[in-house]
């Protein structure tokens, strides 16, 4: 309610209002494509006081995939806008209703492709909640290690694309370079650079390689000084500050009202992080800070992500010390297939293995929601089970999908060029938005 009143006071009352139907003072351009097409048929050369409708995307370098924005412009100023999505929609939630709980990970991991392990984690936590099983301690620590490294790689990707969008092309190269080092470790552990299907209901797919401590220590040693270089390159640089400070401002009340989570909410000044406030895994046993902004602008969101890389590396360093020995998956015959060595020796083990991978395991009826703090905000999975080995309903609360609602409010009364900085600072992953 506060948001609406705020919008109606700052809302524009442009001239030529009768040209566009359903005009109300709001940041969101609530207009169908058909309506927009009708108006778009007007001559290209509008008079001084006329408004222009412009499509930005779906294939535009700054739109991070296939995001399309319908912009209502007065000169170079954005009055209202509407994100048009669905270009990557392949019905992944529907697909999830046809895959067993063990196969489900391969599906959800492809949603937020920049941080696939978080999708797998949320899906596994929801399944485990329905099953009522506890995973072994080592499996939980491995999950934390992999997720924090994934947060690092995801934020490095943000640093790269954010730099690219604003013309800091060297930052793009550096961001991708460091991210690749993290992905190389993922490849060693999971076999794949992305879409790992590594975190599974009951634990993880495989134990860490013997020399993982050396690899992870090397990663920390490599990335930490590079973050200092980013600071030199961008953080204090006047051009960078000019482009980001005071651009795309949002308040805590607005962010909460629009359902925004993650760096957008923290950037506005609210210290809210599920890792600290609703601890899952063993986040209550590690020491880290929740990074908070004050102005809620693009610069705060940039700085938060940069410093969250530091915090994640801090957590990773603690995990190296804390990692216990033990099982990497639960020893519950119902959920876990027998070890490979047993299959050659025992007929029963072979049958058991075959049944788990063809039929899957049955999950008692019920419904459960599990949420994790992904690099983009609260990533939740809502599962409904009807007692079979296939979920009855898989719903993913994708943070990018909901964060995208803030775009029209961030962009209102700004310039198109600032719009590029704003899209970048929201950091939407379209695979997750469209699912």
């Amino acid at each position, binding site marked *: 309610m506060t948001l609406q009143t705020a919008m109606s006071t700052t809302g524009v009352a442009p001239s030529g209002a009768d040209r566009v139907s359903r005009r109300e003072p709001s940041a969101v351009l609530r207009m169908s494509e058909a309506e927009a097409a009708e108006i778009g048929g007007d001559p290209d050369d509008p008079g001084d006081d006329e408004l222009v409708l412009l499509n930005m995307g779906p294939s535009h370098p700054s739109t991070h995939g296939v995001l399309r924005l319908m912009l209502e412009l007065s000169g170079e100023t954005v009055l209202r806008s509407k994100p048009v999505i669905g270009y990557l*929609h392949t019905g992944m939630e529907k697909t999830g209703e046809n895959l067993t709980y063990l196969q489900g990970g391969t599906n959800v991991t492809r949603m937020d492709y920049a941080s696939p392990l978080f999708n797998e984690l949320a899906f596994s936590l929801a399944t485990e909640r329905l099953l009522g099983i506890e995973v072994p301690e080592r499996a939980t620590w491995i999950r934390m290690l992999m997720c924090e490294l994934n947060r690092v790689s995801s934020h490095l990707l943000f640093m790269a694309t954010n730099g690219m969008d604003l013309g800091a092309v060297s930052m793009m190269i550096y961001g991708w370079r460091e991210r690749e080092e993290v992905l190389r470790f993922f490849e060693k552990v999971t076999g794949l650079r992305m879409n790992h299907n590594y975190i599974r209901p009951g634990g993880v797919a495989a134990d860490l390689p013997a020399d993982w401590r050396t690899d992870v220590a090397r990663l920390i040693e490599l990335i930490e000084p590079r973050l200092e270089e980013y600071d030199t390159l961008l953080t204090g640089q006047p051009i960078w500050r000019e482009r980001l400070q005071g651009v795309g401002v949002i308040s805590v009340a607005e962010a909460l009202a629009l359902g925004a989570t993650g760096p957008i909410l923290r950037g506005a000044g609210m210290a809210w992080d599920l890792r600290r406030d609703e601890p899952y895994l063993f986040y209550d046993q590690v020491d880290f800070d929740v990074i908070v902004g004050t102005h809620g602008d693009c610069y705060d969101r940039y700085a938060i992500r940069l410093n969250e890389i530091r915090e994640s590396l801090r957590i990773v360093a603690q995990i190296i010390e804390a990692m216990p020995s033990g099982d990497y998956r639960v020893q519950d015959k119902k959920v876990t297939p027998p070890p490979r060595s047993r299959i050659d020796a025992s007929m029963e083990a072979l049958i058991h293995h075959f049944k788990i991978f063809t039929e899957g395991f049955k999950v008692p009826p019920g419904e459960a929601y599990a949420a994790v703090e992904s690099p983009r905000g609260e990533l939740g999975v809502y599962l409904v089970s009807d007692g079979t080995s296939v979920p009855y309903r898989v719903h993913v609360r994708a943070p990018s999908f909901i964060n995208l609602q803030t775009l029209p409010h961030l962009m209102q009364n700004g310039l198109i060029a600032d719009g590029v900085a704003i899209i970048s600072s929201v950091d939407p992953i379209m695979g997750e938005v469209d699912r």
Partner: protein
Amino acid sequence: MTERYGAPVGDGRPSRGQAVIHPSPSQWLDVAAAARADGFDQLVDLTAVDYLTYGADRSLPEGVQPERFEVVASLMSHARLERLRMRVQVSADDPALPTLFDLWPGSESLEREVYDMFGIAFEGHPDLSRILMPEDWPGNPLRKDYDSGRIPVQFKAASNVR
């Protein structure tokens, strides 16, 4: 039977101990407003489930009439670190509910997605239109009677020449 904001509280067992209330469609807006006033400052999630082919027991509390559709809204109170899930039954004959937009503007795209995928209308929504599927798409993909293999086969009139 325990109640919260005038709505029956769900049995913890099927929901694995998570807090769930079951308002009726006519209570939906009032219960949501009461929850909003009680500190649930964010609508975290809103989705729907089509129970058309559900084989197991629904385990709804006494007095809640099961219907084909269920709209599920997850709320968060940041001050109390508390989550609450509201599950409302929506009949297949008239799949409609009042919108939560006036309480939490963030429900806008979530309700559009439910409208797109399940065909449930939200009365009073400022822009009730398809969000993921094309504007002229027929049918609602996440309904259970919408088969996942239902892509029209091209050239099916062609005779087999071999």
